[in-house]
């Protein structure tokens, strides 16, 4: 597995990336995210726990 594929897999396994929501060109860009940034996202995902199923369309309602 290439480094780029490995990064995408890490993000997908952590429940951060849903590949179907990104174009191939966007995924190529996502794969360039630094290791440090991936670690931050994975740490926050672990803190939050698993995402709610099929809830990605729901807006966060911060409204500021």
């Amino acid at each position, binding site marked *: 597995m290439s480094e780029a594929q490995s990064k995408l897999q890490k993000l997908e396994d952590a429940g951060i990336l849903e590949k179907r929501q990104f174009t191939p060109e966007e995924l190529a860009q996502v794969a360039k995210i630094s290791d440090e940034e991936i670690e931050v996202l994975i740490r926050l995902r672990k803190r939050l726990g698993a995402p709610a199923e099929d809830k990605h369309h729901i807006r966060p309602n911060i*409204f500021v």
Partner: protein
Amino acid sequence: MINVSELKGGQLAPPSPTSVASPGAALWLKMRLAQSLLNTAAQRFWTHPGLPCSFPLFLGELYSIVSCSVPLMEAASERALQLASSSPLAAVTAHYLQQHIEEERHHDEWLLDDLVDAGMDRAELLQRPASANVARLIGAQYCWIHHAHPAALFGYLGVIEGNPPLPEHLEEIRLQVGYPAEAFRCMHLHASDDIEHVRGLKATITALPLSESEEHLIAMSAFATLEGVIRLFEDLTADSQMPQPAGAM
């Protein structure tokens, strides 16, 4: 200090469409990933059983954030203007913020009126200092504005404003917490206005003239904002499960 209108030529041209491979487009993708995490945190908050108890606490935090918003952007805009003659990124930052400040101006007053109509105490809202969670969110931005680059604020804006509510979501929440419609006037205004604001924000961010280090700075700001908002939601949820002293907001 120079005025943004005095800057020459292309520095202030409106953002043009960019390829997905641009540094700004890569930055926007990172913000989309952050939004997926923010959705989880928000989903938990808006569906937790203690929401009617934590909603007034949320409104207090919301008012603090909104009332800090324009002064924060003015500080970033002023710093960006100081740097604009030597930094194309600062010039774009100043241009964007000067427009967005006017879009956001007086929203704190409108929100305050709504909260008073909902039964909250005006004097208490005005006198109450920002919580530690809000101070962490806002304070980090002042640090980066003055000690790194004012464009860091794009990371904050991308997370905070990047996924506004729909009117139907607000109505669902209103019915759940049992507040009058008057309490949601400003929020509904934001719901309709922010769709357009997000388009403008995305167009600006994806076209930013970024170096690698500047892109990393804005991404760091976005992730720190994400973490701050997650903590705010977590604490609000936890606070709703504790007995509240009489008169607590």
